């Protein structure tokens, strides 16, 4: 079980709990605004972009090469950017705070 907190572009804070699957799927199932997950989680659409809180980067890890390639063309991306379809929900990410990019 992991608690994941999303901060939307309207500064709304929503905390969800999940046990498996991707963070994107959890967000979409719970209607988090700004996370669409159009491609279902295969890293082709970049509609699940989040900024991980700097102190949580150790828990989520940084973006993979393919993610970075997707993100490098997004003007809004920085070193804390992740596509959350590529973050699996495990106990290891309990407590992370993610700021929705869109």
């Amino acid at each position, binding site marked *: 079980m992991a608690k994941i907190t999303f901060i939307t572009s309207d500064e709304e804070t929503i905390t969800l709990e999940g046990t498996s699957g991707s963070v994107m799927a959890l967000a979409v199932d719970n209607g988090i605004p700004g996370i*669409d997950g*159009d*491609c*279902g*989680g*295969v*890293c*082709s*659409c970049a509609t699940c972009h989040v900024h991980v809180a700097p102190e949580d980067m150790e828990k989520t890890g940084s973006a*993979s090469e*393919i993610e970075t*390639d*997707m993100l490098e*063309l997004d003007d809004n991306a920085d070193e804390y950017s992740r596509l959350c379809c590529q973050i699996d929900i495990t106990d290891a990410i309990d407590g992370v705070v993610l700021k929705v990019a869109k």
Partner: protein
Amino acid sequence: MKKSEFPDPFENTRESKGYGEMDDQDDPVTMLLRHKDVRKSAHNYKTFQSGATPGRIVIPSEVNIRETRQIPFEVDPPVHGIYRALVEPWFKRPLQPEYQEKLAEQIANIVDEVLQEDSVEVVTDFALKLQSRALTLLLNTPFSESETWISWGTHVFRSEGEALDGDKANILYNYIDAEIERASKNPTGDMYSILLDSEFEGRKLTKEEVKGVMVLTFAGGRDTVINAVTNAIAYLAEHPESLERLRKEPEITGKTVEEMIRYFSPLTQMGRVVTEDTFVCEHAAKADTRVSLCWASANRDAKVFENPNEIVMDRKINPHVGFGFSHHNCLGATHARQIMKILLQTLAEKVGSFEIFDCKENIEDLHHFKRKVGFHSINMKFNPLTK
């Protein structure tokens, strides 16, 4: 070769020099073939613009048959973003459960229909009908409108043996003009009425702007959806183990849809007009010439995709550009993805096997490249699943 095999005609040229060249009505095109170049150039709207003469970024060019600017497709940022934000919520409606229920009912009905037949021509009797009926949901217009659209045939611009058909385009434009007039006099909850009531920078959208969005909606999702649907069925017909896998592992359906979009790449390429002298793959691209972003080639780039010429149903990382990339990525993608997902689910649920009798391939002539993009016709039988 299997009928559902779609060879990659770009491989050698993509690997050796990275670009191809084709002529198109005396307005030649430099085709970008590599995944990285295609994505970078799609993102760089300042050097590679969409807001050129209407019809010029389409290949084959529609400059001679169209004056209406398609919106937001033929507009560059930042104005593009304003139009896009205006129409995007409408095009995200396919994510709503009630939209998906209606679509599922339409698709179940059409599959039930063809299960009764001894022989079905899938392009006309299945894919065209499915696409036209589903479009009534996207437009929120009466179901009966689909009969008119079905009567237009598979491509609203192209007819047999002729790349561009002005008369056929006029059928569409006249129809849209009439619909806009109707909605202007008697607004309903349909897409025409919603657009006419939309605000753009403090004023209502003009009828010409509404027409631009509607032409894009009709044209962009016509042969692309028809090819995706037909090709997917041809693939499942020749890969019964894949149909079986969708039954046993329905959770991979979404990934299979993405993989089919990558492999089939229903839209081969999209053009841009170069605004300043530049280089692509060390090849000079002069201002006011055209380049194309060749999605179909990028989607087979072995630098990005392992086993690029195979359908890997559960491909986990799949950064394909089948719906384009960056600012102008496909507005209708949400609708198209739902069609494909529900189609695969419905076929897995109802169809036991398929038999292909005969087919006529649709080969695009891209000058130095010949690319199979789908079928002109494919006759098949759908056998019901017996439990």
